């Protein structure tokens, strides 16, 4: 595989209320930041992740091209998934060898609707959605299946929210609670391959492993206390092949962090979600990409040499993506 690294990452200051900015307005400063940091105005490939249902209208990604100023026309694609999967598509594209840089972004304004109920519409429309299970009910089922002590779960929330207070991009939240905030936000990442990575960044975060796996949709088909797909993705990405300084996990609930720590087989010394994680800021469709960006940032800043970023999709961690990034691999 061709060496590809995250060379720049930027995110909005995520908000708990609608600030009146449109999605392109939310996105523009973030795109400007990664363009300024890399000095690039054009990219070999561009890919984004967003969800029409957050805006309640088709083609939420179309107006983002205006923020991008995609002129002359660009080579571009979009996934209706968390933008971590847009990063995956861009990483695949860079493997072809004919282009060296890629821009990836994700955005979502989840404060505009009732996110908990909207997520219900992701369930099987014939058998599950009519039951009206919302996001919190699904999380409750999974938490019950795991059966972790409440004190342990509370401590994860407290730790995440405390870290979130130190994160300038996360809103201030109380240290108690059990659900992720409903947040608006956007994030962007620049990927570069080979020589371009070294030219664009002093300490590129090289993607040495990147894999994702999906599981059956129906909750009854899965052991909810475990995440087989996260474990498979982690093995394929080679998480266990070295130490892990920092892991940024797409754990929206405390019990998900416990399930994912076990699935990824993270050593006890690994620092999990030093940014505060999704419990501190959860701009849906960008949250997973932010995990990869936050993990990469530890390498950019010289605080870590080997990190893990994780993204999830679907009800109760149905779909998991794992990225391993290393410093100085080049």
């Amino acid at each position, binding site marked *: 595989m061709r060496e590809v690294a995250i060379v720049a990452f930027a995110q909005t200051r995520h908000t708990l209320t609608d600030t009146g900015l449109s999605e392109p307005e939310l996105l523009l400063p973030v795109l400007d930041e990664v363009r300024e940091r890399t000095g690039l105005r054009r990219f070999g490939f561009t890919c984004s992740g967003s969800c029409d249902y957050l805006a309640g209208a088709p083609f939420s990604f179309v107006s983002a091209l205006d923020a991008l100023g995609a002129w002359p026309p660009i080579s571009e694609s979009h996934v209706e998934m968390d933008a971590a999967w847009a990063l995956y598509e861009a990483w695949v594209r860079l493997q*072809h060898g004919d282009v060296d840089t890629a821009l990836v972004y994700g955005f979502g304004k989840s404060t505009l609707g009732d996110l908990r109920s909207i997520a219900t519409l992701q369930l099987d429309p014939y058998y599950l959605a009519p039951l009206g299970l919302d996001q919190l009910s699904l999380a409750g089922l999974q938490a019950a299946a795991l059966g972790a002590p409440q004190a342990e779960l509370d401590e994860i929330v407290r730790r995440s929210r405390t870290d979130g207070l130190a994160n300038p991009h996360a809103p201030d939240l109380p240290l108690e609670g059990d659900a992720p905030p409903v947040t608006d936000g956007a994030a962007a990442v620049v990927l570069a391959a080979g020589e371009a990575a070294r030219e664009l960044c002093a300490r590129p975060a090289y993607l040495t492993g990147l894999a994702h796996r999906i599981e059956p949709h129906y909750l009854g088909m899965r052991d909810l206390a475990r995440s087989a797909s996260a474990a498979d993705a982690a093995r394929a990405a080679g998480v266990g092949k070295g130490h892990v300084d920092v892991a940024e996990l797409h754990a929206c609930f405390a019990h998900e962090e416990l399930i994912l720590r076990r699935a990824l087989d993270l050593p006890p010394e690994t620092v999990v979600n030093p940014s505060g994680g999704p419990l501190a800021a959860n701009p849906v469709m960008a949250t997973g990409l932010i995990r990869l960006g936050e993990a990469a940032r530890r390498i950019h800043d010289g605080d870590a040499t080997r990190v893990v970023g994780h993204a999830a999709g679907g009800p109760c961690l149905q779909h998991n993506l794992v990225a391993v990034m290393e410093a100085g691999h080049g």
Partner: protein
Amino acid sequence: MGERCAVIGVGQTRYTTKRQDVSMPGLVREAALAALEDAGLTFKDIDAVVIGKAPDLFEGVMMPEAFLADALGAAGKPMMRVHTAGSVGGSTALVGASLIQAGVHERVLVVAYEKQSESNATWALSTHLPFNASLVVGAGGYFAPHIREYIRRSGAPEHIGTLVAVKDRLNALKNPYAHLRIPGINRQMVESTPMLWEPIRYLETCPSSDGACAMVLAAETKVTGTPAWVHGAAMRSEPIFRAGRDTVNPQGGKDCAADVYAQAGVSDPRRDLDVAEVYVPFSWYEPMWLENLGFAAEGEGWKLTESGATALDGDIPWNASGGVLSSNPIGASGLIRFAEAAQQVRGQAGEHQVDGARLALGHAYGGGAQFFAMWIVGGRKP
């Protein structure tokens, strides 16, 4: 372009207004199983699944790949969901091919579908983003002014749209999967239908269809049967609201075509290609895209249509399958173009086979004529 990639299996459902005999998982699985059977494989042989469809509002299920994973045998595998507006079917094929060209996977199942009977597409297209004005027009209302501008610029006579509507429906009579199979279709029949969006009459527009299409893509070492090799693949996007863009003859389409032609060694598409499956949802888009894709000089596309060059027995048949005008499960329509191009060079297009087709173009566009996906496939290894 990376590693070589080939289509080794194609599967389609029949296209119709309402497939009430199957659920959405049933629909996509039907196409997937047909593609696997064509390739002589089973779900076990597949490394990854890529699924595409147009806006989720068309069925009312948010990010439906999650619930379709089981039916597509994706459990335990990577699965991607592509959405690039009307071009999504084409983009889905390109994302699948990219996984092979990158050397990441050896066999990829790509599937695209729409079950439009679950909702109302024109309604779904007419809602708008917060803070934006709604056009409340659907696709026909959006594209009609662009067609009128094309007619003004080119001076094309008004019967050109009718000719395309008849030609594509005559082709559809030879395609067992086609939705609109209208015996005795002729100009008079088209011209007697109501005007929907001046100058688009009822029979000059695409139907709303339920249906799915699937392909099995393989790396060179895994090629079996009769392959269609990918000779070129390209995507282009441009902003919808850029003041200076030409929505009648978009730069993105020209650039995408130039890219894919360069990869495939095509210098004159009319001469070098044997058949083209091009996204023509409204009749007039045939002459418009003939020019945009370089098959005719600017202002001359309608003359090619009028001369019969794009008919099944013409020198460069366009939409031998009947095209989008005859079958339109929106999210799948682009993938059907790509798959029909592959079937032509595999010599497996059945009654609408273009004799001796060696090199074919698959094309899709979407959004406000701003997203483009194209590939060129050939029977010969590139």
